[in-house]
């Protein structure tokens, strides 16, 4: 097996919150190979966005290590971190919030090249124009401001900005969640094309299972800060082993009205607070299959066939 491009080893991130610690990410180990897309699904509060920010090194982990191309970022010097940042870029959910409203699109796209001292002024302009065209925008857009663009156009700009430094990997955090369906398909197609063309690896984070399935080679499912199941895409969909994964798949509305009367696993209750997660298996209070053991003992991830799953009953 090729060496992973990104490797997270037992990563932990705790945040102090009123009266306790939010265990946002708790002992997560994940790998992404060069050119591979790892999908990450889970509901709000599962820690998927914190994980994205840890990978982007927007804040350091409380424990564990994150390696990119073999370099441990938690111990690396500033120069190595800068190099790492240019090789790994992020596409955000809300392109309006992530684009500076006072700068033109051209300036926004040029900025990373200036910061990383890539090329002269003319070269930078050429690169910006070429990339605008590649993401399906007219060069005139460079003179516009973010508020003059539609949601779909803004997300194309967000993608162009992520690609301007020729990264080896991109992190997409709910990159299409704010878009209307007709525009969503356009942006997903653009991501698929660019990924194949540039051989990009990706961490693709979404609450939308159908989208994650379409975009990923492998998928990890998170619940309250932990990875509960991880497998190649087809195994996860055809034979989900964790009761939470099954419930998540069952809860996703189907666009076929005939599927309405299907039997499905309905979860009770809401997501518990990550400040004081349940003891034992964190899923046990909502799990329809929970046994006394699940209340006492936290299940470790173990291999079952092609899948890694953290459930006593799988």
């Amino acid at each position: 097996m090729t060496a992973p491009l990104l490797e997270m080893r037992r990563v932990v991130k705790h945040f102090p919150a009123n009266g306790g610690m939010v265990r946002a990410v708790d002992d997560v180990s994940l790998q992404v190979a060069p050119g591979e897309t790892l999908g990450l699904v889970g509901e709000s509060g599962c820690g998927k966005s914190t994980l994205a920010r840890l990978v982007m090194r927007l804040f350091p982990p409380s424990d564990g290590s994150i390696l990119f191309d073999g370099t441990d970022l938690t111990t690396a010097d500033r120069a190595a971190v800068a190099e790492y940042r240019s090789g790994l870029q992020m596409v955000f959910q809300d392109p309006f919030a992530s684009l500076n409203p006072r700068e033109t699109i051209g300036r926004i796209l040029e900025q990373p090249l200036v910061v990383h001292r890539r090329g002269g002024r003319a070269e930078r302009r050429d690169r910006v124009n070429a990339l605008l065209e590649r993401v399906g925008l007219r060069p005139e857009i460079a003179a516009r401001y973010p508020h003059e663009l539609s949601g779909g156009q803004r997300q194309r700009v967000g993608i162009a900005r992520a690609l301007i430094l020729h990264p080896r990997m991109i992190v997409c955090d709910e990159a299409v969640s704010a878009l209307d369906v007709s525009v969503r398909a356009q942006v997903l197609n653009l991501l698929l094309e660019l990924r194949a063309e540039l051989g990009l690896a990706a961490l693709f984070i979404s609450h939308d299972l159908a989208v994650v399935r379409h975009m990923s080679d492998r998928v990890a499912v998170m619940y309250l800060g932990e990875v509960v199941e991880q497998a190649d895409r087809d195994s996860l969909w055809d034979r989900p082993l964790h009761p939470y994964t099954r419930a998540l798949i069952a809860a996703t509305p189907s666009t076929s009205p005939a599927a309405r009367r299907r039997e499905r696993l309905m979860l009770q209750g809401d997501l518990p607070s990550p400040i004081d997660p349940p003891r034992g298996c964190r899923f046990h209070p909502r799990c329809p299959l929970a046994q006394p053991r699940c209340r006492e003992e936290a299940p470790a991830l173990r291999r079952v066939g092609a899948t890694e799953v953290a459930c006593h009953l799988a």
Partner: protein
Amino acid sequence: MPLLEIRGLQTWFETRAGTVKAVNGVDLSIERGETVALVGESGSGKSVTAYSVLRLIEAAGGRIAGGEVLFDGTDMLRLDLASLRAVRGNRIAMIFQEPLSALNPVQSIGTQIVEALRLHRDIGLRAARERAVELLELVRMPSPRERLEEYPHRLSGGMRQRAMIAIALACEPDLLIADEPTTALDVTTQAQILDLLRELQGRLGMAMLLITHDLGVVAETADRVAVLYAGRVVEQGPVETLFDAPAHPYTRGLLDAVRIEELPPGSRLPEIPGMVPSLLALPPGCAFAPRCPRATPACDAGPPAMRAGGEGRLHACFNPWLSTVEGRVPA
């Protein structure tokens, strides 16, 4: 007579850039006990239609420029304020996408239910509080009696939505307008709330106008669906046949774009080219024509009228997919 009949509704917003025709001639009817989904992308006019029914749109800066909204035979657009208030929250109730901004943050859940009850019913305080507990039980709120004293910010997203549904159901409305009721919720909580709405609707026999952008939610919940594009209904009919064989190219495009699970993973998705037209300057013909794969020069001449396609189906298209007229196209 339908419970609600919207005829030629036009709702406009005056802006510095000109008149935004957010709703531009919507026709829609809902029978008693029926669930009708109004589906469309952002800016299609679905929420403005819903707000216009209760005439909440004036507070949002809009103006109803034309049409009729007949509720049980009475035109809502001609009612004086007192008569309008007697309908709002009583015979027609509404739930919103963001319960946290729709609920009063400084009143307990119990107080808000009691207020809704006593506004429209001659009922004592003690009886109203008992009824509030029953309502919280009805929406399957955990520990309902204790929740009476709870404030909205102390509840989870799912529980807040249950509280808002309890308030809406207080006066046993004939029609519930649900504006993106599950959009802000996680998918497992969404499944619970949709299940609850379906069950309550069957039990109470109320009609529901469901506003959503999510075709999956429509397929799971609605009897009939109306698809909006640029302020007009472009197609409507029973969910089963409409989703199986859409007549309007826009409906088909939308369904193709979301049916990701039926495609091989990683394959190119069908897309609708271009984007929604500006509501300030709608094209003179069919508003979808510039993006439509089946458009002909005739489509730019004038807007297509709504035509019957059989089996309760209607579409506004000069070149519909024929499958709906003659049953399904053989494979």
